């Protein structure tokens, strides 16, 4: 049995390097970008966080912004899992593993974004339970470490088990995956809730210290995640000839539509509360939307995000348009980019401004910081493409275990 597994691993390694010209070009492109990112990180590792645009005033920047956004992508896999496993939706059964693989890639990207943000990456082991000193359950960041690692392990187990069983051409044993799938559903919600609580728990930052942050995170995650899947699944369908039904995409479309509207509604609630009450605590929101005391670096970005999110919802709300793939893809891309701005930089930076002592210092990521981000995104895509490259032949029965010719 172990021998079979080793053979499977060996053949998978070989399969990883077999593909058409397009496959090689795509993977080489992502590898080069990843290496450029690694190069930038090596510089930062050698010289310190001084190479970023962060300051004592804005002490988190584009790393934590991307981290927050991508936790949402990971959590969104649950929107495939629930219909597929709980309601036994046939169309989604073929794609649910692809969604979970996306979650695996996303969690690894999250861990990378946190790591590059550390001032002392050499002390990462202090964060590990038992050998380090883990401030659990007091620190929300210690919760985040647990839920992210837990979610990664759950998804690696579920995907690994189901794919290997398919490779062996055996029926998976319910006991070995169904309980984990059920746990993973709650766990997915928890990773994004805990990430929101990182911000919500901070009494000194009124912009974040609001109960609406967690629901907004969930709403935007279930827009951006399935939106990405709609586009990714069409690409996979085109380049691998893996059978993904239009019905599956239409279910995802409905999820994106509803979530985007919920997200915009919650954004509206927040805007009303901030600006109608117009108290001293409104400064961060005022900085974000209109600029404060002549500082308005984020204002054009947030308005751009809101405009494209509104365009996306209009497309999605007109069934005639939304059923055409071209328009649907456009809406998904717009929603994805809009949410990336809105809950990335648009959420993290204004929380710091004005500072608790009323100072405004604008934050601009440096070139090196940007390259590190590009590198991590490219590496995440590389990882996802590689997993798809292995999973699709297994799922479609083109890569399987056999011993004797029958």
């Amino acid at each position, binding site marked *: 049995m172990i021998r079979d597994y080793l053979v499977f691993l060996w053949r998978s390694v070989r399969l990883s390097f077999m593909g058409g010209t397009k496959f090689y070009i795509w993977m080489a492109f992502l590898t080069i970008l990843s290496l450029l990112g690694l190069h930038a990180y090596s510089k930062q590792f050698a010289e310190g966080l001084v190479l970023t645009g962060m300051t004592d005033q804005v002490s988190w920047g584009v790393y934590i912004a991307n981290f927050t956004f991508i936790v949402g992508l990971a959590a969104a896999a649950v929107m495939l899992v629930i219909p597929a496993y709980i309601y036994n939706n046939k169309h989604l059964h073929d794609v649910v593993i692809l969604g979970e693989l996306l979650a695996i890639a996303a969690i690894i990207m999250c861990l990378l974004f946190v790591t590059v943000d550390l001032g002392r990456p050499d002390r990462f082991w202090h964060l590990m339970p038992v050998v380090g*000193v883990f401030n659990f359950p007091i620190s929300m960041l210690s919760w985040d470490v647990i839920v992210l690692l837990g979610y990664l392990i759950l998804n690696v187990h579920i995907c690994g088990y189901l794919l290997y069983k398919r490779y062996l051409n055996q029926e998976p044993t319910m006991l070995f995956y169904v309980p984990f799938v059920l746990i993973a559903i709650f766990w997915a919600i928890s990773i994004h809730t805990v990430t929101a609580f990182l911000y919500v728990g901070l009494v000194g930052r009124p912009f974040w210290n609001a109960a609406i942050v967690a629901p907004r995170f969930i709403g935007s995650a279930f827009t951006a995640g399935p939106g990405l899947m709609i586009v990714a699944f069409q690409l996979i369908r085109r380049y691998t000839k893996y059978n993904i039904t239009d019905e599956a995409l239409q279910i995802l479309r409905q999820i994106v539509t509803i979530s985007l509207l919920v997200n915009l509604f919650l954004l509206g609630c927040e805007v009303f509360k901030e600006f109608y009450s117009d108290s001293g605590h409104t400064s961060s929101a005022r900085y974000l939307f209109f600029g404060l005391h002549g500082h308005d670096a984020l204002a054009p970005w947030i308005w751009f995000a809101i405009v494209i999110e509104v365009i996306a919802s209009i497309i999605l709300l007109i069934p005639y348009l939304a059923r055409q793939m071209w328009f649907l893809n456009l809406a998904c891309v717009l929603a994805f980019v809009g949410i990336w701005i809105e809950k990335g930089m648009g959420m993290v930076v204004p929380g710091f401004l004005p500072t608790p002592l009323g100072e405004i210092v604008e934050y601009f990521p440096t070139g090196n910081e940007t390259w590190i981000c590009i590198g991590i995104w490219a590496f995440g895509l590389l990882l996802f493409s590689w997993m798809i490259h292995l999973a699709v032949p297994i799922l479609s029965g083109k890569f399987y275990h056999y011993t004797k010719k029958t």
Partner: protein
Amino acid sequence: MTEQQKQNLNETESLDQKTRQPLSRRSFLKIGAGTAVSLTAFGWALSPLANLTEDISLNEFLQQHYERLTPEMMAEIIARLEDEIKHDYGIDPSIQDIKPLNGVEYAYALNIGRCIGCRRCVYACMQENNTSRSPEIQYIRVLELEKGTLDLEKSSHYYNHKAVPQKDKYYMPVQCQQCEKAPCTKACPVRATWKEPDGIVVVDYNWCIGCRYCMAACPYWARRFNFTKPVIPKEEITTEMAYLGNRIRPRGVVEKCTFCLGRTRQGLYPACLEVCPTGSRVFGNVLDPDSPINYILNEKRVYVLKEEAGTVPRFYYFFDK
């Protein structure tokens, strides 16, 4: 069998066979070339590591949390730190792990009616606490406010007049408030920052991972981060150093005001108080009924900054002539 099925079968056979065939001579060559290219690219990507400014020894890497250190381990660590500082800064430091005193809880009060905004406290603090001069790290921020407002957003942080105080302005220095219910210690995922029995919130600079979550958590903007290795001219370094206090920090960790614990735990006043020309600053042990701080807390109308944050600061403000 349809055409489609036949084609599928062919594809299946070919994929399956490809990964089962023994590696050919040609593929060995390919693997060799591929490995060479990847190693070169990888080596290039990692090349900036050659400029590593801070060397991390194995002992430093494996150093345990402050609470887990025995006196012997502490002695070893201090010897190592002294060596490092001597090597890096060219001075002979003396580091001590100064423990809190029994029966002592500190509090601080600042008379806003008297403060003239001269910033002498800011510079005395830098000198005593060995904070980086480039980029400059200061623990105390003096806010210049218009009379009639406490709106910090209207405060001026970088005022630069020929003379202070300016007419119709008042001055409010802000530093770590050593909160009883400190949000920063709650935030830290590795307990690298905690409240000592005498009320001082400290950081173990050799345990901090540099995540800066405590900085986000602080409602008083009292914490600073070492984005680079601190740069301090040799002649400006205070050589008497406390392990949890003013020793020169490594790069990549958070630091903050510690009420000059190296001085105050040995019966001296904090540097900021000692330098103040107006006598606006009052410091002492609240558990001692005869201390000046108790007199202020009992006799003057004191208040705390951002009381609504609920952090119960040990730093009080009052107006008096």
